[in-house]
């Protein structure tokens, strides 16, 4: 009884807080001091990002040009997480492709694939691939970008996992490709931005953004695929 009353009070307080927060005005953007001058950083970025970076999406301009360090360390973070997952589930990995829990499913009797699901997923495949690449390659103009597009492509592999649960993904090969892509992600901005090519060749700005988005997209797709398949086929390994 006391417990339920406590829960009701808690819920009421939370709801009240939410309503109160949603009705308060946010603070106005405070100017940031840089040296002696006072510079309004968000205003500066919003005013100049189109001519300085060649992007039409301010978010892409920030994470691929102004604050490219963030992107580099984010990519490193994902890479380290995947290294951890691969080594965490290292025990008992089988090399040959194998259907998941074969004996149990034949015993249960429900082995046949659903016709509707395989057909609809086959129909969705090209649509999702096309859309994923659209989100990646158009990330500097519309919302989206490398991470989102890569995650969309990775959901494709989940669909494949539902329809046909066979573990034929070569995780170590994918991981090697991912590491090579990480080196590229590290090299391209260092060469392009830190040697100030972007100021000398303004025409290269937009290709640089597209290249970075494509690299990040493929890297994220490979990484998330490794994670999903590792978790999905963890059960038979243990």
């Amino acid at each position, binding site marked *: 009884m006391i417990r339920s009353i406590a829960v009701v009070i808690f819920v009421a307080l*939370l709801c009240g807080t939410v*309503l109160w927060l*949603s009705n308060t005005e946010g603070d106005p953007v405070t100017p940031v001091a840089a040296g002696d001058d006072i510079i309004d950083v968000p205003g500066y970025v919003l005013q100049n990002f189109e001519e300085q970076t060649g992007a039409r999406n301010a978010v892409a301009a920030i994470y691929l040009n102004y604050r490219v360090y963030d992107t580099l360390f984010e990519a490193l973070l994902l890479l380290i997480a995947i290294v951890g997952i691969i080594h965490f589930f290292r025990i008992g990995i089988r090399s040959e492709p194998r259907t998941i829990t074969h004996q149990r499913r034949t015993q*249960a009797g429900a082995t046949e694939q659903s016709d509707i699901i395989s057909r609809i997923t086959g129909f969705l495949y090209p649509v999702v691939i096309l859309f994923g690449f659209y989100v990646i390659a158009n990330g500097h103009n519309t919302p*989206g970008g490398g991470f*989102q597009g890569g995650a969309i492509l990775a959901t494709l592999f989940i669909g494949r996992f539902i329809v046909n649960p066979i573990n034929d993904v070569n995780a170590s090969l994918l991981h090697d490709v991912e590491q090579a892509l990480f080196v590229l992600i590290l090299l391209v901005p260092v060469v392009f931005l830190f040697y100030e090519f972007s100021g000398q060749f303004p025409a290269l700005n937009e290709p640089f953004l597209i290249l970075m988005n494509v690299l990040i997209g493929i890297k994220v797709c490979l990484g998330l695929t490794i994670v*999903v398949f590792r*978790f999905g086929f963890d*059960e038979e390994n243990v």
Partner: protein
Amino acid sequence: MIGGIGLDSILLLMTVLIAIVAVWTKILRHAVILLGIFSFICSFLYLYYGAPDVAIAEAVIGSGLVMLLYLTAIKRYRTYSIIVSVENEDRLEDATMQEFAGSSQGQLLSEIERFCLSRELEPEIVYSRESVAKIAEDGRFDLIVHPEESRFTVYGREDNYLVDELEMLLILHSTDTDTEFVRIGAES
């Protein structure tokens, strides 16, 4: 704010409600579904507040990838399938199930359910028109419940240690209906 009273307040209240229910549900699959809806509404709110990039990332991660990871984790959480054999019904309709759940025999069934939850098993109740022998032959059960006019027969597996405890519990609880336990031998 687009609508007069603010669409965001309604959606924020919904997220709070869903989050609390997700924490308080006993059945983990329901919690996973609730979390999927939570991230869906959350990403719509990001969109509403003018952050479409974050909204896309939240939708893709929250309702696609994370859900698979949670569901694979739940695989370790065992389900306990209870099959209710209602032979004498001509057709299986929602009304008959509700009628059964409301009767005194349904009380026993909910007692079994509570027992499963206390043992960290997820009860899964299936109503079937097959006869008990056929279900037993099929082999996909942990417990078969066969309610009749004045008797309540429970068929359990011989090798399942939970059946003994369940028998004690049900005999204590059933005063007006006969409860009988039958053990089915472990099949090959």
